[in-house]
């Protein structure tokens, strides 16, 4: 059992694990309100044979154990152990888990060949208007601190109009320190 620390890695590996064996892979969630803990587990129930050296005086037993060890070793190479776990106590991870829930519901209900970009694409579409909103919020903050001219810096069309910087590379201007940009007005 492996506790994965990175969320993106957990998502990537669990989707991969599911696509490798959609029939036996399951996605489990355990929530404890009293401890404020959330644990996610994705497993396909396949285990790598564990081997341990058996010290035995009985030769036959030793022989058998060697054979089983070899078999276990060979099988171990073919059957990969996979149990991915992720634990957290952060509220932000609950939001990420919702996205993973959506992914798994789509994969399991429709099939492993579902186009995941549909699921994530929807989320991106939902996120985009939210991002624009954030941008506007930043706008208003900057207006308060740096004045009207600052608005120009964030909309290319206005930039070109004001300073006639259509010929200049806009990205270059953005890289200049703010004081110089303001001076150009």
């Amino acid at each position, binding site marked *: 059992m492996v506790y994965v620390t990175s969320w993106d890695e957990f998502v990537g590996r669990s989707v991969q694990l599911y696509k490798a064996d959609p029939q036996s892979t399951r996605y489990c969630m355990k929530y404890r*309100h009293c401890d404020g803990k959330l644990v996610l587990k994705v497993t396909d129930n396949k285990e790598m044979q564990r081997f341990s050296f058996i010290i035995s005086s009985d030769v036959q037993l030793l022989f058998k154990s060697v054979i089983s060890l070899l078999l276990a070793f060979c099988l171990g190479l073919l059957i990969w152990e996979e149990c991915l776990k992720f634990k957290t106590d952060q*509220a932000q991870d609950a939001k990420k888990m919702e996205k993973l829930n959506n992914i798994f519901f789509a994969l*399991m209900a429709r099939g492993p060949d579902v186009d995941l970009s549909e699921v994530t694409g929807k989320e991106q579409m939902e996120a985009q208007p939210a991002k624009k909103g954030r941008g506007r919020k930043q706008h208003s903050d900057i207006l308060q601190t740096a004045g009207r001219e600052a608005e120009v810096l964030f909309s290319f069309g206005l930039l070109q109009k004001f300073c006639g910087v259509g010929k200049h590379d806009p990205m270059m201007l953005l890289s200049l320190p703010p004081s110089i940009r303001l001076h150009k007005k």
Partner: protein
Amino acid sequence: MGLLQPDPFLNELTSMFERNRDKGSVWVTVKRSSMKSKSQKNKMATAGEPVEYRCLIRATDGKKKISTTVGAKDHQRFQASYATLLKAHMAALKKRERKDKKKGVDGDRKDGAGSTKKPKRV
């Protein structure tokens, strides 16, 4: 109890979360299933019929077990209600403190930068 329709399942899951607020855990497992036994599946495979798969969702609190299945058509509606349910009940998780601290620092920085800009403009 046991196998329920999606809506009663969600109601039961809500009460399960509420019952286990002060003590205990709630386990939810999601898995793909055709809901048929192996022999039935083999028969269908040999007959050439497509095996229809559904999403099996199981929940337990250690004492009571409930489950439901969701098909491809209704899984989006179910996942929306399920997400709302989880959001409402997973309130014990910690809010991100670092971000608040960061916001405070960024806010100070912005004010500081703004105040230094003004004299230059004049």
